[in-house]
């Protein structure tokens, strides 16, 4: 199972800050993941934006990057400090 996190406004776009989900076998990289999960949640492209960075297992990913069903994957809008 993959653990998906949605930070900031993306929790509003997906309806959840956090979900544990079985990635389909066809979802092998961040590009496929973005497309698929944005459609799943009806997020209207919010998860596809260039300014949204992905972190895989707490490290910022250089995309496209491979994803596996054991990863924690975070969708991160631009960070603006505290």
């Amino acid at each position, binding site marked *: 199972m993959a653990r998906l*996190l949605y*930070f*900031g*406004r993306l929790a*509003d776009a997906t309806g959840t800050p956090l979900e544990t989900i079985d990635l389909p076998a066809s979802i092998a990289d961040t590009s496929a993941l973005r497309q698929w999960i944005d459609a799943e949640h009806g997020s209207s492209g919010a998860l596809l934006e260039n300014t949204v960075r992905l*972190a895989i297992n*707490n*490290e910022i990913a250089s995309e496209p990057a491979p994803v596996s069903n054991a990863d924690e994957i*975070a969708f*991160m*809008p*631009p*960070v*603006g*400090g*505290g």
Partner: protein
Amino acid sequence: MITLSDTSFDPGAALADFTARAEGAGAIVSFTGLVRPDARTGAVNTLTLQAYSPMTERGIKAAVSEAETRWPLNASMVIHRVGDMAPGEPIVFVATASAHRRAAFEGADFLMDYLKTEAVFWKKETGPTGSTWIEPRDEDYADSARWADTQG
């Protein structure tokens, strides 16, 4: 010493602790950031900060290490709130100690620029008309860019 706290903290107690730890220093600078009642989107009842641990802490640690490389600091301290805060509550406390005041001022200023512009936080303001997630604005980057001049 870096702390992310989901409950309120007391800047005076933090400075007292830090001063006790900063033995031999001649200069201590502290910065306290408070929730303002008149933030970017108008009247604010609640400020919410989200962090992503341990990425957020790792970024702050790296900024502290960079500050300690650039300036001769005896000690430094960062406390940052996460979660929901009311106007007037402390958001952030930074303290630096050095032999001389210039290093202490610049080290604290540098850390605050990192924390206010680059640190891994997401921020939401909630007022009478609803909630807004706040994303970076240009002015924030200008402050942070001041330090680039002294690099390399």
